[in-house]
């Protein structure tokens, strides 16, 4: 059952122009951060979105919650057009879809206690009557396995992992059905990442949450997602069931990405690099398929037209002429 449906979403950021460019009438350049992205998120699943720098995964996430306003396309949540919402309807949407951020140090207001933060979310959205707020704050802290006295303390008194728990508790306070997590563990030590990942999985099972998990770490994606979307330079190049994609990746970029990940099980592996070349500048993307300059199987036709996502069955789509 589709909870969130994205169709043809695009977001461009105009590049700044110097005086010289204005005088020379050079055409206005733009970074096509997200270009024609379409995907569906099913109720109760964990969808992973992976990619390297400039692939647009964070911008996509922010467009879904309208931190950025998309330039084109549509986003539909439970049948409602998200991009058209205003006022109270928009606030109701905010209750349904929440976000957990990457930076445990910047994502919490340093001047508010944990209790204030959670209480504010509860009271602004009138989740519970005012008298019940303290009890609900205690329940939220329990849910994320933080001690009860955390409510009286300030963010700087906590470790990175604990701060992420606070951020998760804040997102959960409004009782969302979908949580978008933008690189939630990238800033944490490996041993702490495990506990936050566990928390996400546990919450999903307990609360029936749907989760969109954005990361650059393929090892995490392989472990915890049901389906995964691979992005490159603003577009989705492959999307489908995680186990299948990792076992038999179809798109050359996905194949390269998986080959490039250093695994603990591997040993001193010299030899061929996973993929040659650099990530292209988003201001000057290649024509046709964005990956073709680096693709080992590229043909002349690959530079002509951008390949569409084509169905391979069982919810698996690949954007490659040759795959």
């Amino acid at each position, binding site marked *: 059952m589709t909870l969130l449906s994205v169709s043809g979403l695009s977001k461009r950021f105009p590049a700044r122009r110097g005086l010289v460019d204005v005088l020379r009438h050079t055409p206005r350049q733009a970074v096509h951060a997200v270009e024609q992205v379409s995907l569906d998120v099913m109720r109760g699943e964990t969808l992973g979105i992976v990619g*390297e*720098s400039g692939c647009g995964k964070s911008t996509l996430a922010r467009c879904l919650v309208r931190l950025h306003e998309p330039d084109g396309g549509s986003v539909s949540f439970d049948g409602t057009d998200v991009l058209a919402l205003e006022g109270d309807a928009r606030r109701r949407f905010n209750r349904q879809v929440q976000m957990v951020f990457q930076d445990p140090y910047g994502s919490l207001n340093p001047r508010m206690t944990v209790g204030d933060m959670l209480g504010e979310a509860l009271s602004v959205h009138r989740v519970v009557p005012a008298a019940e707020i303290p009890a609900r704050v205690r329940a939220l802290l329990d849910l994320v396995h933080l001690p009860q006295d955390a409510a009286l303390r300030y963010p700087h008194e906590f*470790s990175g*992992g604990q701060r992420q728990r606070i951020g998760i508790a804040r997102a959960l306070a409004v009782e969302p059905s979908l949580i978008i997590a933008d690189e939630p563990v990238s800033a944490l*030590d*490996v*041993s*702490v*990442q*495990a*506990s936050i*990942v*566990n928390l996400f*999985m*546990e919450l999903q099972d307990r609360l029936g949450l749907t989760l969109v998990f954005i990361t*650059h770490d*393929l*090892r*995490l994606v*392989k*472990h*915890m997602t049901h389906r995964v979307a691979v992005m490159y330079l603003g577009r989705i190049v492959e999307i489908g069931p*995680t*186990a299948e994609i990792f076992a038999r990746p179809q798109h050359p970029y996905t194949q*390269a*990405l998986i*080959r*490039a*990940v*250093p*695994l*603990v*099980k*591997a*040993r*001193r*592996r*010299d*030899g*061929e*690099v*996973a*993929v*040659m070349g*650099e*990530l292209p500048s988003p201001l000057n993307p290649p024509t046709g398929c964005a990956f073709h300059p680096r693709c080992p199987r590229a043909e002349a036709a690959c530079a002509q037209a951008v390949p569409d996502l084509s169905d391979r069955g069982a919810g698996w789509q690949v954007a490659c002429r040759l795959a």
Partner: protein
Amino acid sequence: MSAPLLEISDLKVTFATPRGAVHAVDGVSFSVGRGEVLGIVGESGSGKSVTLRAIPRLLHANATVSGQATWQGQDLFAMDAETLRRVRGGKIAAIFQEPMSALNPVLPIGQQIDEVLVAHTTLDRAARRRRAAELLGLVGIASAGTRLDQYPHEFSGGMRQRAMIAIALSANPELLLADEPTTALDVTIQDQILKLMLRLVAELGMSMVLVTHDLGVIAETCDRVAVMYAGRLCETGTVVDVFERPLHAYTRALLQSMPGEGAARAQLIPIPGQPPRIDKPVPGCAFAPRCTLAEPRCGSERPLLRALAPAHETACHAGERLLAEAGA
């Protein structure tokens, strides 16, 4: 087995801060042989970067360094300024995590390479330019001639890292110290840089010390590994030995906490608690409060590094237990 190139013995680094002394490194010993790649792995606060920087004496004045660092028989800590200058860059080179801050933004890359060549070789200007172009080619930067005159901001992240490697290799060093060289890079670029470094190590007969928090990187690039925690050395040995048969509770816990071990979506096994504060010296084993294998003596008796298998040392009271489990 020839004599080791670099030998570090009981290295201790203490920083004087307004809040008191911080024991960043507390008795670390290891050696690096010719042509060997040694990895130093640890999480934040483990002291791995400080250890690396102590070797060529790159730490700030408020650091008190004790212990011994011997380079080809010479004492690095007792060297006079001129000898140290010739060793740094000439014999021992270093590359760091953030190429944008390690490279001088106002000098073209060619000039930064040139500086090293001037300091450590006797080549004339034309020869230096040729050598610089050669180096850029060596690290896989195309159009070397044009690139030499460009500034760091004109390079992408991966290219800057390659440029930094080129600068480091200018004077044909025998040892390369790399502090998280690929942590800030995308995974496909990281793959390229690591393979490049390994190729150079093989072609130029260099040794390398690679500091990182990524166990996968260690597995795929290093011959031997040293695991650090809270400024102390936990375990050293070959990558195969340490990763397949860890003899320290921390190493084992770290390996187990990584995804990819069990079934998909199974609960991972995190390490509970947090690393200790390094401003208070810990009496027993630094890892004891978080250790599932802790015995009573772990809290009071600091375990010493000892070899439980050939070339495999551990500083863990449960070492023998782990050895027995692995053997079984």
